[in-house]
């Protein structure tokens, strides 16, 4: 079963800029893949379409069994709860602790607080930040902040994990650590799609690579 399927997807922004032009691909459930291309090639747009942060101008996007074009606005939250997202600018909230940042998706989904606390600690342990749970994320290094963002993305064990330039401003060693972390999640069955332009890193990882150029998918290998 496909975790993600793009069928002849076009996206033109209201500014007139074409971000995606007839993109077709399928990502099988449990697969791990990289999405690469120059900046402005459409990587972020593709990610946003999966999260329904944007709607395609033409074509269809499927997540699991769900045709996103048939999804009503009120159903979007349920879709997003099945997906974990790691952002380049990590999107952490600086008015609360690391723990509370990671706990947010669980609170929203309505987990019991004790159960949620257990899961938050498990996720923080996974990214090696268990001792930082009471810190404010602003006190952490960029790499640590990125790992908090990853913990938040995986704390509710999503079926699908998206990461948009997760290693964008990290040094190579840290980048590789984070990629290995994604690999671990993939090994327990999570479908992983990572947008990155770090070619040397991608080449070392030996996974499927989708390449975008000017909104077209030009390579899939």
């Amino acid at each position, binding site marked *: 079963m496909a975790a993600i399927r793009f069928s002849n997807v076009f996206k033109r922004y209201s500014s007139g800029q074409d971000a995606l*032009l*007839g*993109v*077709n*691909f*399928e990502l*099988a*459930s*449990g*697969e*791990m893949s990289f999405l690469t291309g120059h900046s402005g090639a459409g990587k972020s747009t593709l990610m*946003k379409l999966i*999260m329904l*942060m*944007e709607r395609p101008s033409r074509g269809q996007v499927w997540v699991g069994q769900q045709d996103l074009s048939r999804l009503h606005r*009120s159903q979007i*939250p*349920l*879709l*997003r*709860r*099945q997906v974990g*997202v790691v*952002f380049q*600018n990590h*999107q*952490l*909230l600086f*008015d609360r602790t690391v723990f509370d940042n990671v706990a*947010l*998706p669980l*609170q*929203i*989904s*309505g*987990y*019991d*607080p004790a159960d949620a606390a257990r899961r938050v600690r498990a996720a923080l342990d996974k990214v090696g930040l268990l001792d930082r749970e009471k810190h404010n994320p602003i006190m952490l290094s960029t790499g640590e902040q990125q790992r908090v963002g990853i913990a*938040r993305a995986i704390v*509710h*064990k*999503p*079926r699908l994990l998206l990461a948009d330039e997760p290693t964008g401003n990290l040094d190579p060693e840290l980048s590789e650590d984070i990629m290995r972390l994604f690999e671990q*999640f993939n090994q*327990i*069955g*999570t479908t992983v799609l990572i947008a990155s332009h770090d070619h040397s890193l991608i080449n070392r990882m030996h996974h*499927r690579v989708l390449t975008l150029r000017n909104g*077209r*998918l*030009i*390579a*899939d*290998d």
Partner: protein
Amino acid sequence: MTNKRSAPDNTPRRGARQHRVESADRRRSWRRHHVSVAKGALLRLRQTPVASFMTLAVLAIALALPGFLLAALSNLQALTSGWDTQPRIALYMQTELSDAAIDRFSRELLLRDDLSGVELISRQKGLEEFREYSAFADLLEQLDANPLPAVIMVTPLSDNPVQLPLLKEELAAMSQVSDAVLDMEWVQRLDAVLALAQRGSYVLGGLLALAVLLVVGNTVRMTIESRRDEILVSKLVGATDAWVRRPFLYSGFWFGLLGGVLAWLLVQVALSLLSDPAQALAELYLNRFQLQGLGLEGSLLMLGASVLLGLAGSWLAVARHLREIEPGEV
């Protein structure tokens, strides 16, 4: 454009187990969220005490004004309803007449079948009442003789507005009577004025309710702006509109409730300041009268209205601004 579908070479051995949240859990967590959000919204008000107090003071004044006006009006209505609104005619007697002649005349009036009551206020009694209630009592001391005429108050049987003036004319034409005054008109006028004032308070109340709506709406809008990041992130990790809306609606609720309580206090204080002079005024009219506060019903109405206005104001802000904050531009 190449695009082939390559089969994954590492097919999944098992899917990641999805967490399930049971419906009983969901209800519990819904209640939990309400409680925590209500507390959080209240704490947020306390975090900015000066700004919150300013907002609450504006709300309280805007709510207290119509509340006070309506309370004052209902008091006035209670006061005038205590009055005999049965029209009466005051007959001012010729001053040359002796007390005995006036007494006789008043007895003759009693025999008329178009009058239901006759009350004689002798010159002496008139003087005593004047002394007791008037600030000009000292003036009387300067005079040698009692300048006040005797007055006979008669109550006509009919309250027909056509017949009453005719009866008044007939009585005025009697030789013993120097003047006759039909005293119904000013009661009617007062009633009309009160009705107008009541209508005016409703209009004013409506305008001030609008002001409350806008003040709460604007305050909540600013809160929404300051929590923009939180809203974006929450929506990205699957928060529903209701979830995102909830803290702001609770802010509006607290503004309404606290503003209403403050307004209620303002009205009660204002009424208690008026209580003594109002009592003195009522005594002038020989009326037993106790100034009424808002009462239970009025108080509940006031609190209810302010809570509703607070909720409505925040709802307006939320409906207008939360949709604008969508995680598209992240």
